[in-house]
């Protein structure tokens, strides 16, 4: 860490000086690749702060003694402390401080729905509306800076070895966070991943232009540097039978995510050109089909693409379709714009890039050509009725409103549920709705002794930061369980 930082030149505060927060100033925008340019490449859209910009933004923070932002962050990152360190030019220390709370800051800084979490709670909103501190961008800055200027490995000493062996299943954010914490506590951790690269949805789902894969692999290397043994190509329940896992380890954390794609079960859904979002995303992200000439796995380049759904996934898919050269890429959503679950920034980015959004419309069947390829989707118009159990107004089909949208590609992005492989191979493991693993929300214990579970596997598809939080809290609970001489086991409430 020999790089000299002249904090005065960067506009920050010198050691010992008092900070004068500039909270009345506007929040500093992040530079973005121009929409016309970026739809021709896969490079990151949001470019990140320079050191000077990061310091300037950090100087707006009041470093509140009772920080509301920290309460709202699901993993309770000590936000005023790390932002204070940025203001004083201590970028590495800031990164290390964040690592105490979050093993994946470069990821969370990029993909967390901050506008609903830490940033929504920032006190500056009260006096300077819509201008909270850009906490996510600062978090990303620290992590990126640290990776760029150091080997990115864990520096602090670990606790002495406890002699306990723990198995973590799945290398998404939940599994990685849990493994990292358990390793820091001195336990020996083996982490098994079914795919050939660790990272879970961060590798196969979220596209390169929102979350560069090199960044995910750096976070993974950080977890490895803690001594976690990560083995890929191991499908627990097949390559490694569940019984061997139960016999071989003192405790187990199941973080197998929600990777099973939902389909609608309407006629024509198995035509060529109709994809589940997972297949489309896996081909493009994990198998790098966008890099023609490099990747072995093909993707058919869509010309007219219809994406069904309006969540995180649907917006990623529509933006990929545009980058693959689609002349028309359209979101079809059965409710109205107000109900769209996607992140504000993503919706805005997608529209800038030319995505069309057709609301209050639902597919009823797909039409194919003589070779079994999709040529159109028949949709039906909808209107909103009374609120349903989720509190959102229920879409009701309008009679005789069907019409055809011509297309050569359809991507069904209506959500995922957990894979049944582990539940169906683990006797006694209780699930809800078929495959969602039942676990206590405080202890993360399941109905099987010594087995804990968290992340999307127990909630259904959620967010990176909630999966991370589950991993961290489960690690604490597992540590207590391991150290308890009675190995007390409380079945989930």
């Amino acid at each position, binding site marked *: 860490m020999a790089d000299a930082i002249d904090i005065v030149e960067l506009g920050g505060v010198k050691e010992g000086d008092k900070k004068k927060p500039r909270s009345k100033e506007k929040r500093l925008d992040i530079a973005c690749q121009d929409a016309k340019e970026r739809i021709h490449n896969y490079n990151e859209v949001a470019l990140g702060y320079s050191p000077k910009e990061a310091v300037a933004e950090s100087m707006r923070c009041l470093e509140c003694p009772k920080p509301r932002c920290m309460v709202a962050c699901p993993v309770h990152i000590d936000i005023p402390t790390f932002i204070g360190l940025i203001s004083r030019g201590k970028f590495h220390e800031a990164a290390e401080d964040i690592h105490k709370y979050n093993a994946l800051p470069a990821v969370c800084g990029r993909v967390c729905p901050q506008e609903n979490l830490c940033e929504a709670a920032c006190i500056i909103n009260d006096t300077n509306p819509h201008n909270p501190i850009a906490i996510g961008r600062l978090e990303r800055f620290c992590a990126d800076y640290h990776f760029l200027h150091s080997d990115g490995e864990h520096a602090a000493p670990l606790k002495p070895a406890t002699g306990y062996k723990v198995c973590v299943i799945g290398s998404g954010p939940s599994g990685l966070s849990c493994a990292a914490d358990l390793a820091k506590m001195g336990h020996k951790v083996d982490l098994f991943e*079914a*795919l*050939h690269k660790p990272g879970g949805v961060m590798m196969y789902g979220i596209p390169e232009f929102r979350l560069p894969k090199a960044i995910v692999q750096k976070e993974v290397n950080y977890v490895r540097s803690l001594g976690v043994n990560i083995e*890929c*190509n*191991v*499908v627990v329940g*097949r*390559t*490694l*039978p569940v019984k061997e896992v139960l016999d071989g380890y003192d405790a187990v954390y199941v973080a197998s995510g929600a*990777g*099973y*794609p939902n*389909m609608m*079960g309407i006629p024509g*859904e*198995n*035509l*060529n*050109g109709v*994809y*589940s979002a*997972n*297949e489309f995303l*896996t*081909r493009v992200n994990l*198998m*790098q089909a966008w*890099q023609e*000439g*490099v*990747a*072995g*796995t*093909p*993707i*058919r380049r869509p010309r007219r693409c219809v994406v069904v759904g309006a969540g995180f996934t649907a917006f990623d898919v529509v933006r990929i379709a545009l980058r693959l050269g689609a002349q028309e890429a359209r979101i079809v959503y059965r409710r109205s714009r107000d109900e769209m679950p996607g992140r504000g920034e993503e919706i805005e980015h997608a529209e800038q890039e030319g995505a069309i959004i057709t609301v209050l419309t639902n597919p009823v069947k797909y039409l194919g050509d003589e*070779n*079994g*390829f999709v040529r159109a989707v028949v949709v039906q118009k909808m209107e909103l009725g009374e609120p349903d159990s989720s509190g959102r107004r229920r879409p009701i089909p309008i009679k005789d409103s069907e019409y055809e949208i011509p297309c050569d590609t359809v991507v069904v992005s209506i959500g995922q549920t957990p*894979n*049944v*492989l582990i539940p169906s191979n683990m006797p006694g493991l209780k699930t809800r709705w078929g495959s969602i693993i039942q676990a206590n929300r405080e202890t993360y214990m399941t109905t099987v002794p010594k087995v804990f579970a968290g992340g999307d596997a127990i909630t259904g598809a959620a967010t990176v930061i909630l999966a991370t939080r589950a991993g961290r809290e489960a690690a604490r609970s597992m540590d207590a369980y391991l150290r308890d001489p009675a190995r007390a086991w409380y079945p989930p409430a």
Partner: protein
Amino acid sequence: MYAITSKRTLAKGVIEMTVQAPRVAAHHKPGQFVIVMSDEHGERIPLTIADSDPQKGEITIVFLEVGKTTIQLGEQFNAGDSLFAVVGPLGTPTHVEKFGTVVVIGGGLGVAPIYPICKGLKEAGNRVVAIVGYRSKDLMFWHDRIASVSDEMLVTTDDGSFGEKGLVTDALAKLHDGGAKMDRIIAIGPPVMMRAVSEKTKDWGVSTWVSLNTIMIDGTGMCGGCRVHIGGETKFVCVDGPDFDAHKVDWGEMFARMKGYAKEERMALEADHKCKLAFEALRR
């Protein structure tokens, strides 16, 4: 990494490889497959585990050079090299119990995958009648191995250069017409062959099972790319199969889906070929 311990050419374009994959070898059951990646940017392709040796930690795969990845494996990978990824054993194992007499049909490349199935069925106390079919004599392989795990074996060749002239379905029909006892039929081979068997046996009332070879990516139920209608219901071949009741398969859909990437596959192969030609021109 998964080291290749041996490689040999069984017939033109048919390669047998043994690969170090101890975890896979330890748990393999008949009918299961692995997903193989040649290198970091390669495709994930499904190949049946044709044999396994848990002591040595090895599995055997047999493949036909048909496209980009299989040709690359055949031409550029040798004993001593390593494969980037081998994942398995995947899929639901073939249902093995004492049925009585089981006719097991292997066509072309399908001869390799029926070896562990015949072996398993025989160990379970069945009478195993194997029918193996090839295009011609010079494409024959593993018939000796099949003979060692079956009670009776019939060989057919399309051109009559060995055994009976004709297709496996001809031999099957002959057996049936001769009044042979059949409690179950299992057929593995090119989809056209499996469909032909299915059509033949439909009226016989003999339970017939096939192993579908759809396009796959993950092999764990995550992508849905392998899906096909079975008895009116969408199934994922990699986890619900690959074995299915032949009479319930939507063969039209199965054929259409297998051609889903024909154009892209041809382009990939041509691109590979052009690279190689350019590379050779450079060397000269």
